[in-house]
């Protein structure tokens, strides 16, 4: 193998292009009754890739993807990669302000917009001083007239010669996602081709996916688990079954109608289905593998799911976005049912990836219990444009010179077999339906809206965990106004369920707001 071929293998676009050619006539995407072959996807992706390259101002920043789960959106993702660029998904369900922040932080100059994104697009373009190039599939005339400072590009004819040149390198970014940050700004997580290829190599060798598989697709594109759905599916020659509507209540018929064989969701989805009494014995025995990731998987739910799939494979995956989709796994079955505090075991790190437990304060190795640090080819190098954050979370550890370790902030327990168990968080981050939420980011939004420094948000841990924010001070704003202003700044999963006004914030021994006391008051 010459050097170039070896490098190519570590670039997502090469792998995708190989799959597009190899599986040309097979179905790549199905949305309801509509289906597109790998050939269709390749054709459209090449056209988009060509438009990106032709219109490029020479920048190498990510291409923003604005759209619902449509063929145009998927072709936009593949087209960005084929154009040797990273993709950065926006979210139509986010407030415009949030999408705007992501656009600005990413430095994107090119946006691929599907037909349904007109409303959000116009909100993003208004008042923006940056001139964007926007690739659209629909009628352009009215857009160009309305936004003369931006350039609209209709999909030009394909030029196979120039549309397929891939020059991305393994170290180049494949996708850029944002996760909740403590300062009030989202954190940019750039994942390289090398990172994502390491993940794909592991998953595809561990679980023999095949051309007849039909993959579920429950995640938003801003959630990195969606990368698994798309890329593992397409590199296996399988069919990505896209839900026709966003209704979480129709997943049972979605699984059956689409004959899904590979399932992937957050545990919250399984909890919802359980509450709807849908997890009956053998109800979904067409699912040959079910993956769960993104939040703690309760034992009761894992057992119910195992029964619903007739005892077939149920896998608990674990891994922060910074370590690329997932980095450890545990198979839950009749013989293997390890758990701690009612939460399914996280298992062991994938082959070739490394973990270490450390003492949070000294960073010295800890045995049995400690903060989980991860290293290896799936771990990213740094956050986007933020040296301070990077220094805090990507550290060197004694005895491992020259290696970078990511501090997950997850406290774990390691048993004698080397299996890991989730114990809790070391910081202000919580999970809502699998989404990472930094409580300080919510505090920052409320502080700005309400004009008081005394804000503390906590997770109210009930069956469906919810955020409750406490505020004190002389406020002119009531609960509805504060919630409304949060809705303009934050994604839906970060909106507090309640705002509670207190005369005085309880303080702890260090003079900081005592969040534990506030949390306890919710249960009184």
């Amino acid at each position: 193998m010459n050097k170039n071929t070896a490098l190519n293998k570590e670039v997502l676009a090469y792998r995708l292009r190989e799959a597009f050619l190899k599986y040309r006539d097979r179905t790549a995407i199905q949305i309801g009754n509509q289906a597109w072959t790998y050939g269709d996807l390749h054709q459209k992706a090449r056209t988009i890739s060509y438009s990106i390259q032709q219109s490029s101002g020479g920048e190498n920043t990510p291409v923003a993807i604005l759209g619902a789960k449509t063929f145009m959106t998927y072709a936009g993702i593949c087209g960005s990669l084929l154009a040797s660029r990273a993709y950065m998904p926006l979210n139509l369900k986010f407030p415009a302000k949030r999408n705007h922040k992501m656009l600005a932080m990413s430095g994107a100059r090119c946006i691929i917009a599907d037909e349904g994104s007109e409303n959000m697009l116009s909100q993003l373009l208004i008042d923006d001083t940056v001139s964007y190039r926007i690739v659209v599939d629909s009628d352009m005339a009215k857009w160009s007239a309305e936004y003369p400072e931006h350039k609209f590009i209709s999909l030009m004819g394909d030029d196979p010669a120039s549309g397929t040149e891939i020059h991305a390198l393994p170290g180049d970014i494949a996708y850029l996602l944002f996760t909740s940050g403590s300062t009030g700004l989202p954190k940019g997580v750039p994942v390289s081709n090398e990172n994502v290829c390491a993940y794909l190599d592991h998953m595809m060798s561990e679980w023999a996916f095949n051309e007849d598989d039909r993959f579920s697709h429950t995640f938003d594109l801003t959630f990195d688990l969606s990368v698994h759905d798309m890329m593992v599916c397409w590199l296996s020659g399988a069919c990505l079954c896209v839900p026709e509507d966003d209704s979480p209540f129709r997943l049972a018929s979605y699984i059956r109608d689409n004959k899904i064989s590979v399932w992937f969701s957050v545990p919250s989805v399984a909890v919802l289905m359980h509450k709807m009494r849908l997890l009956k014995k053998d109800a979904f025995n067409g699912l040959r593998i079910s993956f769960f990731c993104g939040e703690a998987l309760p034992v009761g739910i894992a057992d119910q799911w195992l029964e619903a799939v007739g005892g077939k494979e149920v896998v608990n995956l674990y891994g922060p976005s910074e370590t690329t989709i997932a980095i450890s796994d545990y198979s839950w079955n009749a013989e293997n049912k390890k758990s701690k505090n009612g939460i399914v075991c996280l298992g062991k790190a994938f082959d070739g990836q490394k973990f270490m437990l450390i003492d949070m304060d000294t960073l010295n190795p800890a045995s049995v219990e400690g903060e989980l640090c991860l290293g290896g080819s799936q771990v990213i190098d740094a956050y986007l444009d933020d040296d301070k954050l990077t220094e805090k979370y990507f550290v060197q550890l004694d005895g491992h010179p020259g290696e970078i370790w990511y501090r997950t902030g997850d406290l774990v327990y390691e048993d004698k077999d080397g299996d890991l168990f989730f114990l809790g968080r070391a910081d202000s981050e919580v999970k809502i339906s699998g989404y990472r939420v930094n409580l300080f980011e919510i505090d920052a939004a409320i502080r700005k809206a309400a004009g008081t420094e005394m804000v503390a948000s906590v997770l109210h841990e009930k069956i469906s965990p919810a955020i409750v924010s406490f505020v004190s001070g002389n406020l002119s704003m009531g609960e509805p106004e504060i919630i409304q202003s949060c809705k303009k700044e934050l994604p839906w999963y970060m909106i507090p369920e309640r705002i509670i006004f207190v005369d005085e914030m309880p303080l702890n021994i260090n003079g900081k707001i005592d969040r534990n006391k506030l949390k306890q008051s919710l249960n009184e």
Partner: protein
Amino acid sequence: MNSREIREYIIENLKDKLVIFDISPAEVNMDFDLVKSGLLDSMAFVDLIADIEDKFQLEIDFESAAEQDDFTSLGGLTSIIMNFGDA
């Protein structure tokens, strides 16, 4: 059990939420969508149905109910409950 009783029960059940969202009970008519309005997330909506099932002593078939386009509207939910209540 009639549709007025069901509506009254739902509004009573959600009264704290309505205050937070600044929605007057009068606005919650039969077309009002409990989920799309942002008032309830999917988990809270299913929890509401569980409360209704307890209150009116019935059990709905979620899979067929969810197929209805107006499943999450007050009117849609009310008619589903009445159907299962009669059965």
